C-alpha cells in the first residue's frame, strides 16, 4: 500500500521494488507482472466460488419437488436429481460446478431453461453503462467541488461543500431514487420513471431513461468523492513543489490542475477503485427501482424465483468485474505519477 501515498518519492529501478522494468505494455516484464497479479487473485476467486456455490443450498428441502411439482413421478424426480448431480456429495458437486464454470458453462436458468451465460451477455452492458454513467456523474460533481473546498478552505465554500458531502453520504440512495422519480417523473413529467432501451437502439431514449438511475447512484457517491478530493488537495496544496510552481509564475489554474490535481488523483483513484464494489451494490438495488434489466435485477429476481444458477452467474460476474477494476486502477498509477513503477 506504500505507493498509494501522494507526494515526492524516490523510487529507482534498482531499489528492489518488485515490478516491470518499464511501464510499456509490450514489455515482457509487464506481462509477468500481470500474470503475477492474476495468480494472486486465485485464492480470492476460490473463496468467492465457495460462497457462490453455497447458493445451491438455496433450494430448501427436496429441490425436485419445488422444480418439477407434485404431479411428477418419483422416477422423473430421480432422473432430475441425477441430471442436477444432487445425488453426489457436496465437494464433488462443487468440483463439477467449478470445472464447468471454468469452461464457461454456468448452467441453465431453472425457470426459463435459458443458458445463464446468454442471459449475462445481454445484461452486462446494461449494468456497465449504469455504473459508468454513475461514476462519471459522481466525479463530475465531486472533484470540482472538492477542489473548490480545498482552495477556499475555511470559507463558506468549504462549509457548503462539507455540508453537501455529509448530506450525500448519509442519504439512502434508494430513497433518493424514489424521491427523484416522484419529483421528475410524477410531478414534472420530464422523464420516464422506469424501463430501458439499449444505447444502440435509441441513444436519446436510453439517455432519458438512464439519467435518474445514474443520478440516484452518482449523487450518493459524489459526497465521498468531494471529501476525498478535498483531503487530497489540501495535503498537496501545502507541498513544496506547489509553492515552487507558483513561484515560477504559473497561473493558478495550471498549478491547480496540472500539478496539484495530477498528484491528488492517486489517493482519489484509490478510493474510487475501492468503492466500485459499493457502486455496483447500489446498482443492484437501483436497477430494481427503475426496472432496468441488468445484473442487479437478475440477482434479485433470481432470489425471488429460487433460480440459483442465475444468481450464481450474476454474482460471479460482478465480483470478477470488481477484481479486474482493482488491477486496472493499479495499472493507472504509473501514468498518474511517473515516479511510481508498478
Amino acid at each position, binding site marked *: 500500500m506504500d505507493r498509494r501515498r501522494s507526494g515526492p518519492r524516490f523510487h529507482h529501478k534498482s531499489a528492489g521494488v518488485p515490478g516491470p522494468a518499464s511501464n510499456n505494455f509490450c514489455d515482457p516484464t509487464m506481462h509477468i507482472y500481470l500474470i503475477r497479479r492474476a495468480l494472486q487473485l486465485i*485464492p*480470492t*476467486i*476460490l*473463496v*468467492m466460488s*465457495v*460462497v*457462490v456455490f*453455497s*447458493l445451491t*443450498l*438455496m433450494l*430448501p428441502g427436496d429441490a425436485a419437488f419445488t422444480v418439477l411439482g407434485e404431479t411428477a413421478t418419483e422416477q422423473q424426480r430421480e432422473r432430475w436429481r441425477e441430471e442436477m448431480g444432487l445425488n453426489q456429495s457436496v465437494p464433488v458437486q462443487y468440483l463439477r460446478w467449478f470445472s464447468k464454470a471454468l469452461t464457461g458453462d454456468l448452467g441453465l436458468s431453472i425457470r426459463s431453461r435459458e443458458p445463464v451465460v446468454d442471459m449475462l451477455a445481454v445484461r452486462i452492458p446494461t449494468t456497465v453503462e449504469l455504473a459508468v454513467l454513475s461514476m462519471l456523474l459522481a466525479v463530475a460533481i465531486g472533484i470540482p467541488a472538492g477542489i473548490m473546498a480545498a482552495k477556499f478552505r*475555511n*470559507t*463558506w465554500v*468549504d*462549509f457548503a461543500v*462539507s455540508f453537501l458531502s*455529509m*448530506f450525500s*453520504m*448519509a*442519504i*439512502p*440512495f*434508494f*430513497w433518493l431514487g*424514489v*424521491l427523484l*422519480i*416522484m419529483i421528475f417523473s*410524477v410531478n414534472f413529467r420530464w422523464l420516464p420513471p422506469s424501463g430501458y432501451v439499449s444505447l444502440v437502439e435509441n441513444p436519446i431514449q436510453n439517455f432519458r431513461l438512464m439519467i435518474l438511475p445514474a443520478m440516484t447512484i452518482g449523487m450518493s457517491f459524489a459526497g465521498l468523492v468531494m471529501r476525498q478530493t478535498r483531503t487530497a488537495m489540501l495535503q498537496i496544496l501545502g507541498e513544496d513543489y506547489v509553492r515552487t510552481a507558483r513561484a515560477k509564475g504559473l497561473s493558478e489554474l495550471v498549478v491547480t490542475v496540472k500539478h496539484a490535481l495530477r498528484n491528488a488523483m492517486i489517493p482519489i483513484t484509490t478510493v474510487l477503485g475501492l468503492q466500485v*464494489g*459499493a457502486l*455496483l*451494490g*447500489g446498482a*443492484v*438495488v437501483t436497477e*430494481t*427501482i427503475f426496472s432496468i434489466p441488468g445484473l442487479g435485477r437478475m*440477482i*434479485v429476481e433470481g*432470489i*425471488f424465483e429460487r433460480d*440459483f444458477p442465475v*444468481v450464481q452467474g450474476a*454474482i460471479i460476474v*460482478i*465480483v470478477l468485474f*470488481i*477484481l479486474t477494476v482493482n488491477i486496472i486502477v493499479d495499472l493507472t498509477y504509473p501514468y498518474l505519477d511517473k515516479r511510481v513503477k508498478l
Partner: protein
Amino acid sequence: MQSAVETSNTKLAAAQQRSKGMLARTAVRLWRHKLGKFGVFIISGIIFAAVLAPVVSPHDPTHVYYEAVLVPPSTQFPFGTDEIGRCILSRTIYGARVSLQIVFVAIVISLFVGSMIGLVAGYFGGWVDDVLMRIMEGLLSFPMIVLALAIIAVLGPSLSNAMIALAIVNTPGFARLIRGQVLSVKEMDYVLAARALGVSDFRIMWRHIWPSVGGNAIVYASLRGSAALITESALSFLGLGVQPPTPAWGYMVAVGMNYWSEWWMSFFPGLAIFFAVLGLNFFGDALRDAMDAKLQDN
C-alpha cells in the same frame, strides 16, 4: 513609502479581510466540533424513541383505521396513513426498534468475531495468518449488499437472518483492521516481555494487545454502523429483510412506490433512515477525531 492615511487604510482593509475569514473559519470549526454532539443527540433521540416506542407513538402501529386509508399528514396522523390505514409515524417509530436492533447486534457480533480473527491472524502469523486473511479478502471482494443478498438467498428472509447476513458481511473489515494493528503492536517491548515471562498466548492477546487495539475497533464499529444500516434498509426495501407486518423503514419506502401521489408513505421512513445514518456518521467522525486528538496529545 505610503502616507499615514494610506497605511491605516490598508491596515483597516486587511483587518476587515481577516475578520471575514475568521468568521467563516470559526463557523467551520464550530460546525465540525458541534457535529459530534449533534450526532449523539440524533442517535440518542432515535434510541429513546425506539425504546419508549409504546409511550411515544401516537397510535398503535398495527391498528387499522378503516376510514382513514391513505390520509395525508394531518394533526391526527402527523406522517399520514398507509394503504391499509395505519399511522405511519407510529410505524416509523416502531421501525426504529427493528433497524437499531439488527444493526447493533450485527455490528457487535462482527466486532467480536472479526477482532478475534484479526488477533489470531496477526499474533500467530505464518500460515494461520495467510489462510485467514485470504478468506477475509475473498469475502471483501463482494459488494456488501451482494454478499448480504447471497446469504439471505441461502437462509431465507427474516429479521434474524438479516442480522446474521450483516454480521458476516462486516466481519472481514474488522479482521483486517485488527490484524494490521496487531502486527504493529506485536513487536512492542511489553509484549515481548510478557512472552519472555511465559505468559500464555491467549492471555497476551486479551490482556496486553487488545487494549491498545480496541479503540480503533470501536471507531470503526461506529463508522460501519451507518453502512450496515443502509444495507439493512436496502435489504428490507427489496423485500428480503424483515418481513411484513413488522414495520421496517426500507420496506415502507418500497411500499410507497406503489402510491406515487401519496408521497408521505415513502418520504418519512426514508427521512428516518437519513437522520439515523447522519447521526451515526457524525458520531463516528467525532469519535475518530477524538481518538486522533488523544494520539496527538500522547
